[in-house]
Each structure stands twice: as C-alpha cells, then as structure tokens.
C-alpha cells in the first residue's frame, strides 16, 4: 500500500512538471503583459510584477502605443471578418462534400480522399509563391477576400475529412425511410441528416475559425497595407520591427490568443477527438 502511494506522488510530481513545461511560456506572456515599462527592461527579470498594471492592454486596445499608431480594433475586425466568413464557407462546402463522400458511389473515392489529405499536409510554405502569384493575378492582393479564398482552400480538406466521418456514422435507415416517404435527396439532407449533426457542424466552424484566426505565413505575403492586416500579421510585424516594448507586445499576444482559448474551452473534447480521428484515419 505504501509503495502505491509513493508511486501516485511521483506520477503527480512528474505530471505537474510536464504541465509547467507546457504552460510556462504562456504564463510568462501574461506576467509580462502586467509589467510597467520600468520593470520590463529589468535585467535579469523579476518573476512577478511589483506594480501590476493594466495600462498595456489599454494602450493596445486604444491604438495609442508608445511609438506609433497601431489600429488594433481594425486588426481585430479584419480577423473576425476573415475567420468568420471563411468558417461559414468551409462549413457549407465541407458538409455537402462530406455527405457526398459518405453516401454517393464515386469511382476512385478513396484515392480522391487520400489525395485531398496529401495535398493539404505536404506543401506547407512551399506553396507561398504559387498562391501569391494566383492571388495577385486575380487582383486580390491587400484584399481580405483574397485571404478568405486561400484560407477556405487550406482548411477544406481536413474539415471535409471530419464531416465524412460523421456522415458515415449516421444511421442509413433514417434516410432510407425518408426516401420511401418520397423525400428528395436535398430535402432529406437538410431535414433528416443535418439537424442531428449540429455539433459536428459547429465544431467544424469553430475549427475553421481557429485556423484562420491563427494563420500567419499567407497573411504575411498577401497583405501589405496596414488597414487590411489581421491580428496575427499585426503581431508578427510588431515583433519583427521592434525588439523592445515587450510588455505591450505580450499584451497584444494575449489579446490575440483569447478567442482561441475561449473556443478551445468550449469544444475541447470534440476538437481533440476530431484531430485524433482525422490524423489516424488519414493515412
């Protein structure tokens, strides 16, 4: 019995150490965001702020930063527009495509699904140049619409996979009895299949929103003008141009991360499950 309790204590200590390792960078960001300008330049730093201040958040929010005007409310509005519209388009297409893949008889379906996943996972930053050239030839540089189109393309493969899984698990009998009652394919889809799949639709939308909100490399190459920048791009520019005022940057970083953490809190279980099943079935 005593050996068991020692084991539990060791496991608990190791778990807490792992948590510390995983969470410390974010905790440090929050601590830094409450330090005033005298403290943030202290070398070596103190672990806790001696005079915690909320001024940095105010400075970021009102756009009156120490050194220049950064319209953060505009950046946040841009990010909300881009991520929101991208999420809506993604859910719309992914649910249709997912249902099609789950039910319709398409020759070479599994190969097509496999290619979809491959095309999403493999290219990464190596498609920065071609995507830039395509968006440019569409005349959509410095335009939120261009970024939305790119994000939809980036997010669709994975979300389609998620919805294929959900619709495959949907009991076929319900649809068949609807067909017997004379209901068409589309109305069956909207009346019978979609309502119970609400949770999947919401998860997909949130997931798409998260990816779009966090994305950086494509925003970096597609948006140059300040008034169209998204939050992640604005944060990146901030850091790359000014290696100082870290408390203000920390406050900005915390603001950028808040929606992500909120969404994750709500959808934690579904998202982890979705991620894992997508990854494991993927290959």
């Amino acid at each position, binding site marked *: 019995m005593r050996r068991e309790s020692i084991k539990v204590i060791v496991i608990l200590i190791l778990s807490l150490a792992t948590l510390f*390792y995983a969470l410390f960078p974010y905790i440090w*960001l929050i601590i830094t965001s409450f330090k005033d300008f005298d403290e943030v330049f202290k070398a*070596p730093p103190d672990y806790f702020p001696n005079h915690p201040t909320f001024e940095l958040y105010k400075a970021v929010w009102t756009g009156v930063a120490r050194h220049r005007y950064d319209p953060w409310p505009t950046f946040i509005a841009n990010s909300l527009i881009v991520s929101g519209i991208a999420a809506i388009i993604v859910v719309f297409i992914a649910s249709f495509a997912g249902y099609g893949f789950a039910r319709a008889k398409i020759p070479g379906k599994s190969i097509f699904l496999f290619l979809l996943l491959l095309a999403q996972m493999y290219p*990464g930053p190596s498609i920065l140049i071609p995507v830039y050239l395509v968006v*440019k030839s569409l005349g959509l540089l410095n335009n939120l619409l261009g970024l939305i189109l790119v994000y939809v393309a980036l997010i669709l493969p994975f979300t389609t996979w998620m919805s294929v899984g959900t619709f495959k698990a949907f009991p076929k009998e319900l649809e068949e009895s609807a067909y017997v009652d004379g209901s068409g394919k589309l109305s069956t889809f909207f009346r019978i299949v979609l309502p119970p799949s609400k949770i999947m639709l919401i998860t997909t939308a949130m997931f798409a929103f998260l990816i779009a909100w966090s994305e950086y490399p494509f925003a970096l190459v597609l948006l140059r003008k300040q008034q169209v920048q998204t939050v992640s791009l604005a944060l990146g520019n901030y850091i790359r141009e000014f290696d100082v005022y870290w408390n203000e940057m920390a406050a900005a970083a915390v603001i950028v991360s808040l929606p992500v953490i909120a969404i994750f809190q709500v959808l934690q279980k579904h998202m982890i499950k979705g991620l894992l099943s997508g990854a494991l079935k993927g*290959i």
Partner: protein
Amino acid sequence: MLKETYEYIGVAPYRAILVDEVFHEAIKNTVIFMLSGTGLTFAIGLLTGLLFSSNYRFINVFRGLIFLPWILPEIVTGTAWRWMLQSEMGVINKLLMDLRIIPRGYAWLGDPMLALPSIVVIQAWRVMPFFMILVVASVLSIDPELLDAASIDGASSIRKFQYVVLPQIKYPLVIGTLLTLIWMANAFTIPFVTTGGGPMYASELVATYIYKTGFLFLKANIAAAQSVVQIIILLVISIVYLYLFRDIWRGDLT
C-alpha cells in the same frame, strides 16, 4: 512587385540554387531540424503520454491544459519564446541560472551554435501535446484485461510496456511520427519570428529561405525552384520512413 510577364528560361533557376551556398546550408539545417525535432517530440511525447495515461484525480483537467501549446497561434508562442530566450531580460537564462543549471546567461537566439537547437526545442514544444494525446488515446484504448493479466503474471512496468503496451500502440506511433516529420518540415512561423534564420543564416531553413528569396530578394522563379526542392526532401524522407516501417502500417491496414 514580382515580375509581370513570363518567359521560358529552362533550368536556370535550378542552376542558380545549385551554386547557392546559403541554400545548401538551409537544406542541411532543414534536415537536422526535421530529424532532431521529430526525435525530441517522439521522446517527450511518448514519455509524457505514458505518464498522462495513468488515472488519478484532475487528470482530465491536466489533459486539457497540456494541449495549450498546440492550440495557441504560432505567432503568439513565437513571441513568447523570443522574449523568454532574450539574453539579458529573458526569463530562461534567469530560471536556468537560479536552478544552477548554467553558470552564465546565453544569447540563445543570437549565437550561431545555439540558434538552430533553440528553434528545434521550440517547435518540438509546440508539436509535443499532439503526440502525447495520441499516445494517451492509444494506451487508453488497450483492453484493460490484457494489462491486468500481465500484472497477475507478475510482469514489471517495463516488461508490461514492452510486451503489452508497445505492440498495441505501434501503429499510432508510426503515423504520429510521420505527421511530426511533415509538420517539422513545414514549420515556418516560429523559426521566422524567433531567429528569422539568423544569425547569418545559421538557423536558415528552406521554408524561411523561400520567403526571403521570393519576397525580399524578389526572385519568384528561384523561390519556386527552392519550393520544389523542399517538397522533394519531404517526400523522400517520408517514403524512406514509410518503407522502414512498412511492416507496422501494412499489417495494421489489412
């Protein structure tokens, strides 16, 4: 800003990257980054995954919290790490010196010897939660009777892992490692905002160099050739990898 009209110039861009020494350095760094980052993620992810598979109070809260590095925007975590690894005001030097692990502070991101290892550690830190939760999910799906039977037979923890757990989680491990390899190769944001490839290309990756060639030096054709090389590296490494572990994933698919 990139050229408007196109003309056929054959393999000239490939000849250009063949003689570009910085690009060679970037390829070398990318391969080191991919392999060591994946190794680190595997080691930490497997160990902590086994740790988090045990059942005790708060474990579900812990499993949720551990996902934070994975879910946070990379630009946010990149910001945090760049600030933490700063040589004078950074907290990592302070922490390691207070714990007597290092005698003096280092310029983690500014030292040519330390820049690449630093971004490997940061990127592995970010991918680790995914790998870990993958391990947790796989271990939890093992039939508990198998583990009980092994305990009754008096098997030690190490033997239980070797003969009961490992064979059951082999397939997810192989897939998780492949995904990690791909994510490592495609890492851009964290290296870009922390070292930016510096100092003097010491931590330049093909991904960050593609950006520089295309959007700072304004040579889209050469950047495109570099992108093709990047894809080839990734494909070759994944094919070799899948070939090495063919028994595991083939066996599991049939």
